[in-house]
């Protein structure tokens, strides 16, 4: 199962709701404003750290770069590009875009 989140964790409860359903073995992909959750210095850091301990966490690099986060992303978040995004969706039987 792949969960895709695109809302800022500071302005929406989308990521929090998604994380309640994130099971071991699932993948989480942060895109657009959701990449702010991957900032190692932000207050969401502990929440995401916990998610990363049970699931694989990815962030879309073009969105990370656009928001000036390139040097701030947590270590256990894997950065992927657009083709990595496509591969991830293709490899996973079910994807859920949390809008």
């Amino acid at each position, binding site marked *: 199962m792949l969960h895709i989140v*695109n*809302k*800022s964790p*500071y*302005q929406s409860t989308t990521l929090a709701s998604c994380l309640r359903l994130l099971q071991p073995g699932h993948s989480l992909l942060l895109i*657009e*404003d959701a990449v*702010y959750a991957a*900032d*190692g*210095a*932000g*207050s969401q*850091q502990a929440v995401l750290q916990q998610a990363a301990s049970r699931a694989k966490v990815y962030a879309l*690099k*073009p*969105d990370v*770069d*656009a*928001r*000036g*986060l*390139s*040097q*701030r992303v947590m270590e256990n978040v894997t950065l992927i*590009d657009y083709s990595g995004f496509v591969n991830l969706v293709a490899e996973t039987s079910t994807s859920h875009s949390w809008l």
Partner: protein
Amino acid sequence: MKKFMFVNRKAPYGTVYALESLEVVLITATFDQDVSLLFMDDGVFEIVKGQQTKDIGMKNFSPSYRALEGYDVEKLYVDAESLAQRGLTEKDLLVPVEVLNSQQMAELMQQQDVVLSF
């Protein structure tokens, strides 16, 4: 001359609000009004250094905040609490700002003729 305050509360690229706000700020400044910008909540991300938008196919409009000075828009305020929550400090911002607490923001807002929220 009226006092205009623009309250920016959205991150820069996920929605169009930040860019639209900047456009209205520049128009207002052109009409020689007294303009203040307040960045709070995710709005503080609008003025974070190091934005590179090449790979998302959108214009990086963050350098425009540095040009505001040229339009005599020099009153830039930032919410201390929003910065802290996001692990940011003044050093992470690309323009000189005044960092305010909630009480100071409330007072400043009350002094305005017009407050516009983006």
